[in-house]
Structures are given as C-alpha cells and as structure tokens.
C-alpha cells in the first residue's frame, strides 16, 4: 500500500488516556456451535498485524458454555490467537443484538484492545454497528484490506465504495478501539498449528434472560444441500451473459461437475432469472476465493471483479480479445465459450480419469 495522504482540517492526536489500549481482537462468530470461517481468516490477519505492532492477538468467543465452545476456544489458538476471552452465559446461546452489545461493550472497556475486527456477515455487521455506537468510536465497513501505518501505529482499513468503483482507506486516529468489519473470503485462511496454545480469560457477564426483550422463537436452518456453497468452493466455473441463453448454463454445470466445483454467475443472469441469487458472485453477491475460477462469457465489470479477483488462478474465456477480464485474469482464451466449455469438459474429464486409473 502506498503512503497515506495527510488528512486535513481536524486534530488527529490520540488522547493520552487512550494510549493504554493494546492488542488486536477478533470477535469469533459462532452460530449454533459452528464458527463462520471469516473469523479464522481474521485471526490469521490479526496475527500479521499484531506481529507488526508487537502486540497480542485476542479472540473473543461468546456463547453458552458447552464442549463445542471449548473446542472453538482451542481452535482460536491453533489459528494464531495468544489469548482467548471466553465469555459464557446461557443468555448468549443465540445471537441477539442487545445482550451481545452490552457484554462486548463491557469487555472492551475492561480489557481495552486497540483494534477490534469482525466479519462483515449478518451477525458481524449488526453487532459492530451497535458496539461502535456504545463505544463512540469509528467503524470501517466491509473492508477488503487491512494494514498498519507504522508512523502512528494506526489501522489503515481499505474498503470499496460507490458500488466497488472506488476504494478508500479509512483510519480512526483519535479514538479507540479502531473497529472494522471484513468481508468473508478476502483474507486467506491461516494454516493451523495444533501445537499452539495460550491464555484463556474467562468472563461471566451474569445476564438475566428477563432483561432481554427480544426472544428467539425458533431457528429455521437452511436446507444446506440445496443451496450453492459458493463462498467455500475451491473450484468455480462461472457464466456471464456471453452464454446467450439460460439453456446454455448446462455447459458450465457439466464442467463444474467434472472438476468437482460449483457454478457461479454474474448479476445480469440472476436478474434475468436464469438462476438463484445464491450463485451471484460480486459486490452485491458473494465474495469467492477459489483455487481455480473459470470465467466464461464474462466481461469483467468492476462489480463482478471485486468478488472474484482474489482467486488463485483465473482462466477467462471470451470472444472479445479486448474484454476487461483479460486485464486481470491469469490465463486467457479468446474464443466461443459455447464450444470451448464442452471441449474443456471432455479434456479435463479425460485427463482426470486417466490419472485416476493410473493412480
């Protein structure tokens, strides 16, 4: 990242009493015992930032006490946390804004971290907006990049705005903690190190269910099998308007099947009703980070690009040699996706099955 331009017009000195705020926290998002992977991505990222600053990484795990919750605390260490704040109370079993906000406000005020990170998920965004208000501090939304400016040891949080057409870097200079939410899958998943352990700080907030106005009547889990699990796919074959008509989507499904991957699409296809919203990749859809992204008949508009450009390898197929997608794809093929896709399905199929026999 290049140097910051000096912000103008206001005072940006950190008041003396806020200088004691130390360490980088990640609020670990767990719902019904399973952790959203963005939390581990953030612990990995926090590790890098903390090493730059020479401070500790804290993971905050909230919920009702249970073996699953203990396992999550252990996982936090293996992904890079130095200390886990384990906050348990039966009232915290299900996510509700009010008790989570009260507890987090207290814990932050007690232990004083300088940076607090959350996933930009439905839970993370709901909670972050509330606690930034109770803590009267700055919050940068939906970041795609985090860094530390060493001259003043401040968090530089970069995020897209105006529909992804612009990026901006935001700092919180005179307030603590500095808060940010980060989109899932933009940071890489850290490697596990099972030998790592650390300190556990137990917090018992002593909440009363009677004090909580919002009640969870029930929880309707998504029928997971029917929903595309795009955000976590290692291989994605994606289709754009260049495929011409909905029937041709079969070509990407066939290739995805041979590769054991998922199918993604651009927004116009969702809007035209070719497929459901859960397959949309991009600014208003999912952010993905597969090992291989095959983009067929996709022009590479910025709103699509921000959702997939972190893929390890992007192979673009487009009839137009000047399509913007070739400016950032790794491999390009100029040609007709309608004939190349079936040929790719064949070629991959042969290559992979030959080896299966040989292996």
């Amino acid at each position, binding site marked *: 990242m290049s140097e*910051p331009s000096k912000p103008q017009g*206001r005072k*940006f000195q950190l008041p003396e009493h806020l200088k004691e705020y130390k360490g980088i926290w990640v609020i670990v998002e767990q*719902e019904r015992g399973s952790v*959203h992977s963005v939390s581990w991505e953030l612990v990995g990222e926090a590790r890098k930032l903390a090493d730059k600053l020479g401070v500790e990484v804290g993971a905050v795990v909230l919920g009702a006490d249970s073996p699953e919750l203990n396992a999550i605390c252990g996982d936090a260490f293996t992904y890079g946390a130095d200390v886990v704040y384990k906050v348990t109370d039966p009232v915290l079993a*299900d*996510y509700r*804004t*009010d008790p989570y906000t009260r507890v987090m406000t207290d814990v932050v005020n007690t232990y004083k971290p300088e940076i607090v990170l959350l996933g930009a*998920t*439905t839970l993370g965004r*709901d909670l972050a*907006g*509330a606690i*930034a*208000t109770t803590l*009267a*501090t*700055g*919050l*940068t*939304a*939906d970041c795609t990049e985090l860094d530390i400016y060493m001259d003043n040891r401040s968090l*530089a949080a970069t995020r*897209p*705005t*105006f*529909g992804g*057409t*612009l*990026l*901006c*870097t*935001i*700092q919180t200079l005179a307030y603590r903690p500095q808060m940010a939410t980060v989109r899932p899958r933009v940071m890489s998943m850290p490697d596990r190190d099972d030998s790592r352990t650390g300190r556990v700080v137990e917090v018992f907030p002593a909440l009363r269910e009677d004090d909580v*106005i*919002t009640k*969870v009547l029930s*929880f*309707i*889990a998504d029928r997971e099998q029917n929903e595309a699990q795009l955000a976590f796919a290692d291989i994605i074959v994606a289709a754009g308007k260049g495929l011409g008509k909905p029937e041709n989507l079969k070509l990407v499904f066939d290739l995805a099947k041979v590769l*054991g991957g998922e199918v993604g699409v651009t927004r116009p296809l969702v809007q035209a009703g070719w497929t459901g919203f859960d397959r949309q990749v991009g600014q208003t859809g999912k952010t993905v980070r597969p090992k291989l992204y095959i983009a067929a008949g996709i022009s590479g508009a910025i709103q699509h690009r921000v959702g997939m450009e972190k893929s390890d*390898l*992007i*192979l673009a197929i487009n009839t137009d040699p000047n399509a913007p997608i*070739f*400016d950032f794809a*790794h*491999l390009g*093929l100029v*040609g007709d996706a309608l004939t*190349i896709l*079936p*040929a790719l399905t*064949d*070629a*991959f199929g042969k*290559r*992979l*099955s030959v080896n299966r026999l040989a292996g």
Partner: protein
Amino acid sequence: MHIVVCIKQVPDSAQIRIHPVTNTIMRQGVPAIINPFDLFSLEEALRIKDKVGARVTVLTMGPPMAETSLRKALSLGADDAVLLTDRKFAGSDTLATSYALTSAIRKLSEEETVDLVFCGKQTVDGDTAQVGPGIATRLGFQQLTYITKIESIDQGAREIVVHRRSEGGVQVLKTALPCMITMLEGTNTIRFGKMDDMFRAARYGLKTWNKDTTGAEEMKVGLKGSPTVVSKVFVPKPRAQKATMVEVESPGAETPTAEAQAAAAVEAIFGTQPKLADELLARAAAGL
C-alpha cells in the same frame, strides 16, 4: 402508531463514471435516487399503515436537493416528511449521521411517540449498513436487521414477530415496540403511488430542520463528530500483469478448433500449475 422511515438520497451508482485522468467521481449529470434498499423498508412501513393504521414520516439528512426524494416518498403514500439539512452536518461518518438522525427522531417523538423506525439494509454509495444499528442503539430500541418478513404486529400488546436472515438460516424473533427494522432486499414489491398522493406530494410543505431545531450538539456532527477519517480515495489498481494468452497450436487452420483450445488450456493448467494440478487430481481421485 407512528413510523419513521429513514431514506437517503444517493447517486444512481449504475451511472457513476470515474474521470480517466483525475480518478475522481464524475457526479455531473448522474441522477439522484432514493437509496434502492430504503424502498423495501418504506414499502413495509406503508403495508403496516394499510393493515393496522399508522402515521408514516419519512426523514432524510442531506443537502436541500434531497427534498426530491422526500416528495417521491410522499407520492408513494408517506404522510409527513422532514428534511434535516445543515452545512454543519457535512462530512458526517456513520456515528455522526446516526446521531444527527436520532436527534430528529427524538424531536418527532415529542409530537407523537415513535414506535417503529425503518432504515434501509445499507446504501449503495456509503454501503456501510451502520446507520440503522447506530440509531437503534442511541434510541435504546430493539434492533432487527436483515428482516425478510414481518409475521405479525400486535399494537395492543406492543409485540412484533419477524423473520431475520442469519448466515446459516432464519431466526424467528419476537420483540417489543419500539424497534428499528432494516428489511432485506427483494422482500416486497414497491407500489406505484396513487394519483391523489402524487398531487399531495407536490403541494406538501415539508419540514426543514437544522442542527439547532433538533438540538444536536455541534461537537457530535459533521467532521468534528466523526471518528473515522478518509485518508485516501483511489481507483482499484489494475493487476500489474495482463492475462497470459493460452497458446493454441492448430497447424494449417485459420482459427483453432475448440478442442485444440481446450487441450491447450488444460495443458497450461497442468503444465504450469503443479499444485493446482495435484489438487484437481486428488479431488477427482476422491470422487468429488
């Protein structure tokens, strides 16, 4: 029942262009619209009005030209409109914005107690989704974000049951009024305005309030009241390197066949990306 719907006027992001030389946003000629996500919330408020009866007030903070968005909302069926406008508000971040809006909602509550505040899920320009939660927290209202459905609302018992989208499913929540709700996109279809509402909207004398009208403290609004500092705005950098075009050998032919292209692409992946190739093979072997 008194419902306040917060709407923001935003540039139509589909039409925003970046100046090729200065890398700044070219706003000239870009039409201003009501933030699309706010319309789902406005519609939901109007449905409550239709069903159980309510006064719907729309509130916006912005420059004087934001008036057009308020008139649009009135033409759709809102009863009252407040334009909160003051140069001192300029440069507010979400903490300061939610403070300013809350000061106006408090003032509205003096006239008639506010039971429900609706906000959009997020905007298409700032895109933070933080103003709604900021308002709820300041007002001490229950906060209900990403609502897909309002199942029931009981005015007598002051109870509301909603469906809330979470990452892994849907939470069915019961809570008490007052509360702040943000609706998820696509939850309802926005109505066309009625003729008489359109006429009324054109004639309506909107309330125009400033910092002093609502009693907002100067230190808590505008740049002074904003903890966040935008230190840099820039256009996403193109990747340093353009795509390597897959070399296709097709002796004799003018244009290579699809088979030749596919073979070359597979070769490019297997030949130059050993890690990925191993991964693909392992997946195939595991029958994924």
